[in-house]
């Protein structure tokens, strides 16, 4: 019998945003007409967000074709030619074309092993791909100490940004006195531009549950919480579904596998506070209070949720665990550098050709990540810098991007590994503006507990606003440096301690841009609106819409002739620039 072809539509958040559900429905409509020809399945994120909607066709004999940029209109041709006649439509293929294949060449997929391959709603598919074998191995043949030893041997460090050795954290929680212990999965991914955890939760929720189960067994916990952002409804939905399935399979609940191990997982939806990514704030939030960090020690390992010993790891950390148990810590440690083992997932965004999710071994250079894996800079721009670690991170200029991805090496540049958000910047990105953007984020998200973080970030933001408006002074740069040092040393948690990083690193590597804003009143990247000069070029058709929209009447001209802007009257509101349909308004 000819095996049935299967159609797999990527329905992570990025796929849905790009219209994945409409594509899925279009296939459904076609299926009603050819019910024998194929079956439709949902899958998660394969990482190629830049080619969404992605549709994979598998022939049931191990061959597959991946189509990118699929629209509902393209579905009928895919069905007619590929599914019914067996001909591939080469111009729409992603995987067939060699130029895209190198997207995967340098990747090593441990965390993302199942992402985009299995149906995240199917526990059977997870089990068929080796899932829940690690928890079986742990319960049947390993002591908690052996589990911790294996994780220690892997060299795995916390992937949420802290970088603390995971095995050591488990050891402390295991050693802590007390019987009621908790495992918490930190899924409060709040860095703007970071979506690693969301993709893992949406595409392979069982891998996270299995990691939590193993951690619970290792430290002796019988209750777990997943603290997930409420802004990730799809991830929460998939997690709830996965937890119910794990219960049905007897993998959660009482006396699991008859080994006397009990474990329950609850989901707590965060309510929108960036600071709740900090572990003591996260615990306060689960307990129903304002999510404000507290002084450590005592560390959560000794006194965490409800005052009990608690182990908190991030989503990506947990997603590594089952692989480590099955393949051994040594296999994991074989990847990477002496200081940083294994792989790291990055969410690539900004001015890079291939935006999306990648997983590369530690030790790869940043340049190789940007150019070899992600295809270089979009629109053939000039590579200027990357920003790693989100608002707590720092920027690394292009000429330092030959350093390997490694906790220590990155720290030396003033940036941090962070949780994996990586923003690529080109010559059209203003570094002062980027620093201001991140600082306005941390300023807004400061919980207000520490004076330096609460007021210091506000003062820094005011200075940056002045500079981008052309009202900065030389003294401002010294004040920024001084405030940065004070905020870093006088803040309780990572938010305040790292908030000045984007400013510190941009000042260190791109001081001349700050100086251009201050001395010449110019924004070299043409971003900071108050410093721009607007003019109208020959593309102007004289339609008059800019003149009508200008609030100060600075634009004049006869109908159907090129208009002119009077710069004395112009208040640089950019309305003419946004309203023009002919790209005739230019700024410099």
């Amino acid at each position, binding site marked *: 019998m000819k095996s049935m072809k299967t159609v797999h539509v990527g329905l992570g958040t990025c796929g849905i945003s790009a219209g994945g559900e409409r594509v899925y429905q279009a296939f459904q409509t076609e299926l009603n007409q050819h019910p024998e020809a194929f079956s439709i399945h949902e899958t998660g994120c394969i990482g190629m967000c830049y080619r969404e909607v992605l549709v994979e066709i598998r022939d049931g004999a191990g061959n597959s074709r991946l189509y990118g940029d699929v629209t509902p209109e393209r579905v009928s041709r895919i069905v007619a030619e590929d599914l019914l006649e067996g001909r591939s439509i080469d111009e729409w293929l992603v995987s067939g074309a060699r130029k895209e294949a190198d997207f995967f060449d340098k990747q090593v997929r441990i965390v993302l092993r199942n992402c985009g391959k299995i149906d995240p709603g199917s526990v059977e598919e997870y089990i068929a791909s080796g899932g829940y074998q690690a928890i079986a191995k742990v319960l049947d043949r390993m002591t908690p100490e052996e589990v911790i030893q294996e994780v220690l041997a892997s060299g795995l460090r916390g992937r949420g940004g802290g970088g603390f050795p995971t095995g050591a954290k488990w050891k402390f929680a295991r050693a802590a006195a007390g019987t009621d212990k908790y495992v918490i999965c930190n899924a409060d991914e709040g860095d703007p531009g970071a979506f690693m955890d969301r993709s893992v939760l949406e595409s392979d929720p069982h891998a996270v549950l299995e990691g939590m189960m193993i951690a619970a067994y290792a430290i002796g916990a019988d209750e777990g919480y997943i603290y997930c952002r409420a802004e990730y409804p799809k991830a929460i939905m998939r997690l709830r579904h996965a937890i119910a399935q794990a219960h049905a399979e007897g993998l959660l609940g009482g006396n699991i596998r008859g080994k006397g191990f009990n474990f329950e997982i609850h989901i707590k939806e965060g309510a929108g506070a*960036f600071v709740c990514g900090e572990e003591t704030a996260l615990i306060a939030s689960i307990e129903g209070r304002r999510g404000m960090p507290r002084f450590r020690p005592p560390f959560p390992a000794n006194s965490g949720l409800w005052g009990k010993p608690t182990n908190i790891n991030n989503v990506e950390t947990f997603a590594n665990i089952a692989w480590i148990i099955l393949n051994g810590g040594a296999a994991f440690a074989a990847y990477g550098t002496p200081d940083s083992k294994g792989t790291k997932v990055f969410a690539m965004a900004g001015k890079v050709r291939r935006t999306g999710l990648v997983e590369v071994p530690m030790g790869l250079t940043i340049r190789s990540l940007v150019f070899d894996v992600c295809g270089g800079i979009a629109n053939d721009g000039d590579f200027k810098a990357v920003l790693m670690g989100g608002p707590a991170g720092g920027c690394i200029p292009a000429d330092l991007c030959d350093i390997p991805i490694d906790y220590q090496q990155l720290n030396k540049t003033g940036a941090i590994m962070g949780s994996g958000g990586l923003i690529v910047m080109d010559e059209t990105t203003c570094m002062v503006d980027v620093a201001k953007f991140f600082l306005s984020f941390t300023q807004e998200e400061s919980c207000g507990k520490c004076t330096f973080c609460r007021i210091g970030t506000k003062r820094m933001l005011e200075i940056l606003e002045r500079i981008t408006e052309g009202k900065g002074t030389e003294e401002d740069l010294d004040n920024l440096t001084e405030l940065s040092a004070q905020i870093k040393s006088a803040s309780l948690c990572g938010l305040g301690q790292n908030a000045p990083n984007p400013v510190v690193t941009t000042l260190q590597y791109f001081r001349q841009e700050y100086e251009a804003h201050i001395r010449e009143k110019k924004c070299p990247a043409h971003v900071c609106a108050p410093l721009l000069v607007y003019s109208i070029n020959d593309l102007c058709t004289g339609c008059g819409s800019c003149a009508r929209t200008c609030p100060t009447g600075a634009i004049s001209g006869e109908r159907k002739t090129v208009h002119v802007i009077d710069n004395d009257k112009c208040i640089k509101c950019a309305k003419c620039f946004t309203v023009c349909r002919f790209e005739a308004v230019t700024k410099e």
Partner: protein
Amino acid sequence: MTEHLSPEFKPFKVDLWKYDGHAGALIPLLQSAQETFGYIPEKAIESISHVTGIPAADIYGVVTFYAQFRTKPLGRNVIRICNGTACHVNGAKEIYSVIQDELGLTYDETTDDGVFSLLSVACLGCCSLAPVITVNGETFGRLTSPKLRKILRDFKRKAQAAEETAAK
């Protein structure tokens, strides 16, 4: 405890409170209230205070701490501008100025006729489509000013048409 509740609060609270049984239920209760009413009315805070014994002032403190909770109702069409990093470097500011221009709204405001509300979100997570907005949960990506103006005018027209039908 249930008798303290006015009837409209019964649907959202009871099972949640039973489910957890300790203080940790406050945030889920507030989330449930917001889901029911679209915002957190003062009455909801009073009711939750009655049920849980947590002082209303503390509950108000929690409500105002988290970005998710609103103390004012939203308009019928909710526009969210993504201000994630990718959208920022790809022109979210321009998107904002277009919306300001078309609807006369700044962040966290609702138009006087209650038709549009404008909110900012830190990241919608579809960075490859930047710059992005959502209107009533539907995503509009790779926006340019003309494209956005057209989208907004379409929604305005629809809102007007709906109003006219309602008037009839």
